[in-house]
């Protein structure tokens, strides 16, 4: 009998042990303040790239200077965050702070489902506040929904034109292009072919899985992806004209390899197989170690007569169910303070997320930051208000551009894409 009971107890323990793994593998819990008055903020972020060390160092800096608030940052891949965060927030087990995605439109899905808390009190002139006027207009506009601010920028970047100085010199081009017309002719000049084989591309233009490069050509020509009311502008004449121009350069002159993802385009420029690329500040961390003799220039001016470029930011949001909202707002304000923004610029190459730091002492050591920062007033987001960004980008815009790069009729392809976009964003006009 004793033997039987021992066996039963052993089996029950085995079962309990097997199930214990399940109960302990749940998402990170939202930590409320501990007994000693220290508030722990759980923070999920997706900074897995070369800039990770800078973010980790900044969190350490915050924790060492704020004894009553400790930030516990968990870094995980973006797709992992995308899969886990909505469910975790909806079930009340999500982190206090998170960076849901690097596409700004995605936060609208969280907002419409009541998962995020507004952070309006972040803006102001108080001790733990940031003056509203110092945030770049594109950020304020993208993060404001129904009059409420829902995110703070974890970083901020604009795109510039990277050009290979050696290739320019070899082609007899003395300076980077300043107009779109010059960019087009330089791209052709810099494309080197041997029979049907392209030895060197004039540009590396990515068409999917990338920071938006194609919209720049469209915006520079007065076209757009969406109208002010969010409907499609893909079939507008300026949009069609811009895409037609670049489609011709690709189909007839082979100025870029087709079908490039963002990383493929970076690799092409890094391997010195392409002479130009429009890219963000993070790329300096790849091209400098690769010993590419590159220069940076503002994106050339198009027919609208002013420079325009793509903006990029990672929204940092506050969980609606977090019990530590005040502490989180303190962290947000600290993050947007001038010394932190200068540190981010100095160590990760990002321009400051505020517009009042021109001439700030720490920025003098960062050769490229001033250029990227100067583009801030002219930077626009790609599909900033589209909640189902990923679906629209991968099912509508990118396939249309990919088809056009392979010789599809520009007007009819964009017309079809326009209908799809209107359908995706529920626009009936």
């Amino acid at each position, binding site marked *: 009998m004793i033997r*039987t009971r021992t*066996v039963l107890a052993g*089996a029950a323990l*085995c079962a309990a042990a*097997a199930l214990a793994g399940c109960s302990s593998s749940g998402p990170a819990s939202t930590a409320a303040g501990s007994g000693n008055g220290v508030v722990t903020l759980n923070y999920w972020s997706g900074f897995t790239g070369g800039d990770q060390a800078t973010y980790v160092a900044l969190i350490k800096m915050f924790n060492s200077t704020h004894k009553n608030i400790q930030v516990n940052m968990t870094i995980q891949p973006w*797709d992992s965050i*995308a899969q886990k965060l*909505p469910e975790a927030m909806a079930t009340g087990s999500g982190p206090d702070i998170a960076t849901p995605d690097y596409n700004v439109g995605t936060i609208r899905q969280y907002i419409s489902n009541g998962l995020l808390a507004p952070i309006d009190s972040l803006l102001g002139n108080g001790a733990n506040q940031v003056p509203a006027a110092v945030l770049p207009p594109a950020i304020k506009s993208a993060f404001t929904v129904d009059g409420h601010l829902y995110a703070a920028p974890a970083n901020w970047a604009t795109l510039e034109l990277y050009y290979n100085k050696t290739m320019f010199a070899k082609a007899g081009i003395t300076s980077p292009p300043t107009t779109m017309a010059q960019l087009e002719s330089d791209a052709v000049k810099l494309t080197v072919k041997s029979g049907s084989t392209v030895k060197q591309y004039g540009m590396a233009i990515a068409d999917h899985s990338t920071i938006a490069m194609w919209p720049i050509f469209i915006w520079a020509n007065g076209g757009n992806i969406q109208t002010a009311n969010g409907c499609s502008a893909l079939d507008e004449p300026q949009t069609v004209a811009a895409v037609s121009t670049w489609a011709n350069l690709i189909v007839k002159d082979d100025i870029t390899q087709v079908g490039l993802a963002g990383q493929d385009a970076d690799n092409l420029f890094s391997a010195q197989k392409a002479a130009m690329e429009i890219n963000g500040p993070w790329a300096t961390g790849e091209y400098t170690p690769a010993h590419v003799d590159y220069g940076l220039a503002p994106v050339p001016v198009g027919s609208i007569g002013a420079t325009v470029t793509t903006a990029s930011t990672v929204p940092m949001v506050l969980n609606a169910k977090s019990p530590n909202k005040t502490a989180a707002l303190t962290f947000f304000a600290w993050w947007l303070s001038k010394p932190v923004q200068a540190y981010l610029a100095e160590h990760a190459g990002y321009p400051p997320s505020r517009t009042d730091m021109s001439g700030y002492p720490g920025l003098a050591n960062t050769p490229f930051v001033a250029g990227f920062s100067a583009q801030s007033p002219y930077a626009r987001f790609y599909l900033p208000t589209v909640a189902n960004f990923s679906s629209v980008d*991968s099912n509508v815009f990118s396939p249309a551009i*990919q088809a056009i790069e392979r010789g599809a009729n520009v007007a009819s392809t964009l017309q079809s894409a326009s209908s799809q976009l209107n359908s995706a964003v529920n626009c009936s006009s």
Partner: protein
Amino acid sequence: MSQGLARTGVRPSGRTPTARPTAGRRWRKATPGYLFLLPSAAILLVFVVYPIAQSLWMSLHDWSFFSSSHPFIGLGNYRTMLHDPRFWNALRNTAVYTAVVVPGQVGAGLALAVALQRNSLVNKFMRSVFFFPVISALATMGIVWKFLLDPQIGIINHLLVSVGLPDTDFLQSTTWALPAVIAVGIWKSAGFSMVIYLAALQDIPRSVMEAAAVDGAGPWPRFWRITLPMLRQSTLFAVVMATITSMQLFDQVYVMTSGGPLFHTDTLVTYLYQVGFQDFRSGYAAAISWVLFLLILLVSMLQLRLFRFKETD
């Protein structure tokens, strides 16, 4: 004697009914066994049975990660699928891949097994060489082939150009992307079929082959009339396994082409992944997974019937 026993109702064994173990005693005897099964059963219930049931439940709802309410829509997701060109495109690509890779993989495996069946040192080494891709991670092999097929740095393009053939960007060509993925699929899996056939070939009695040779049968008649029929069970196993893995194709495509260019290599599972984990339409993704499950079940049953699989097999 026996008739007499039957009439009197006495059991031949001589055991009286009271000697049978009672239900309670049987249960006590079996309980430790059931309890030892409990950990495995619990794991299966939590990680296999429950997710399967949950996915069926999700497929009947408008289910999104973002929303806490998931309205019941019955077969709505399945009706949406009927009018979804991306689903039909993915189904077509999956069918083409499966239709080419399964015979290619099984045929190549059989050819390799026949060629390498003798136990020489060289053959043993070559078997390892051909089996190596099977044990390598498909995602890793996908990356390797992506480099090999790269138009700028890939050796395949370099070789093609050196013999006067045109420079081709295989993985970005709407014509060549799917054939390239298919070729890598066959290369990756042929070793698996080879191992199955090598084992089966060892089981064919030499006496049968010798008798056929004595009767004047040449190598080809012996192969077609003796070897191949005797490999029927192994062929069935190889074909069913190859079909299931082909219809579930994901990682190789995800790494090599991400379903592109222009969805020309999009498979049911890559599409399912996009719908579920990028568009967050979990209910629709669950419905696609159930359709895939039913398709695999149907095709497997057809194959079993085609190969005249019997219980005795």
